[in-house]
């Protein structure tokens, strides 16, 4: 049964190979939008959704179009265009049909086009040779891992914000150093998936 495999892929992408904390993908939104809990969750959920949609679109296109016509080298261009179009499309659809959701998630969508985690997950799925279902599971895992990292770090940041910090460390440097400790903590998950 493949179920076990799915669990392994999911756990490894959420915890062991966490995109933000272990692979440095999507650092900009991680540091930029993690100040408030509602923003962090909004961004995390939007990234998860876009990752799932992007994988659902890019995997079939790569496998059935690019590979068939031996255009694998066009991967980067095609993927980024698909992602950009998808994000734009989602924004328009949300705005038209679910304005409430657009209000809470819509603002994050344009920022996601240039998020390297989304392009990264689509390319990694192809490089790892996952089939369609495995790719979707892995994207879900990466998105959830991103959400987890954002929410965790948001808590730590609210704690840092009201502490007295030396002048030159204030702002970005202390945030990065705090992120490094969170990342160190995630080392505890090493070996959880055999």
């Amino acid at each position, binding site marked *: 049964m493949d179920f076990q495999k799915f669990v392994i892929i999911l756990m490894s992408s959420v915890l062991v190979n966490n995109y933000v904390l272990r692979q*440095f993908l999507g650092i900009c939104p991680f540091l930029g939008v993690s100040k408030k809990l509602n*923003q962090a969750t909004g961004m995390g959920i939007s990234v998860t959704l876009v990752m799932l949609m992007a994988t659902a679109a890019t995997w079939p296109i790569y496998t059935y179009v690019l590979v068939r016509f031996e255009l694998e080298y066009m991967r980067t261009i095609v993927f980024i265009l698909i992602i950009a179009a998808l994000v734009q499309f989602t924004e328009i659809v949300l705005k038209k049909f679910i304005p409430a959701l657009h209000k809470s998630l819509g603002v994050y969508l*344009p920022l996601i086009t240039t998020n*390297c985690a989304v392009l990264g997950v689509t390319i990694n799925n192809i490089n790892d040779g996952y089939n369609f279902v495995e790719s979707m599971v892995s994207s879900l895992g990466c998105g959830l891992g991103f959400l987890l990292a954002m929410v965790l770090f948001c808590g730590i940041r609210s704690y840092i914000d009201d502490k007295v910090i030396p002048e030159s460390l204030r702002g*970005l440097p202390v945030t*990065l150093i705090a992120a*490094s400790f969170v*990342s160190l903590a995630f080392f505890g998950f090493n070996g959880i998936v055999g």
Partner: protein
Amino acid sequence: MKKQSNWSILFKGILLENPVFVLILGTCPTLATSTSVIGALGMGLAAAAVLICSNVIISLLRKVIPDEVRIPCYIVVIAGFVTLVEMFMHAFLPDMYDMLGVYLALITVNCIILGRAEMFAGKNTVGKSALDGIGMGIGFTLALLAMATIREVLGSGTFAGIPVPFLYDNPISVMKEAPGGMMVYGILIAVVNKLTNGKLIKKKSFGCEGCPSAGICSKGTCENTAKEEG
């Protein structure tokens, strides 16, 4: 826009507006590929090549590209050059290609390149844009090399593969891993802050200034965040 001499355009990317330590752009590749000096050099040069080419082309096309769709156009130009660099590396430097892995393709969404296209190449002449690309490219490579030197010497006890006495037997392997990268980056920014009395680094946190998506989302998150921060 105030007039800048060609020399200042070239050199500002190296020091005064260093993309990594001052403009704080391109964090992801900086952290990911600075584990070894060789990898950092490869990444820096690859990104510099893409940056120079895309700056020139975008500057040439700046009067043709309609304003509303400029970001997608920039992305296509950049992705094209990234693909060229990828194919070139795959053919001539296969070891480097394997070492950089997915991060090579991710040059496409590197904030430095899109950021410079948006901030500089879209508004300036071809010559100036090329100089800006060269300066920013050198600045990025040097910053990556600085980070990689610290991380490789402490983390693996080698410099570009050559063992360093004492440290080789006692490597601090966490420096090679993710936490070491973030810590070194944080400390280096703090050092730049300290040396310049906080005057140089204008961006205290990740804001919209220099965010490549600023053009698309000018009325979205950025304003909201600014309001909340203000």
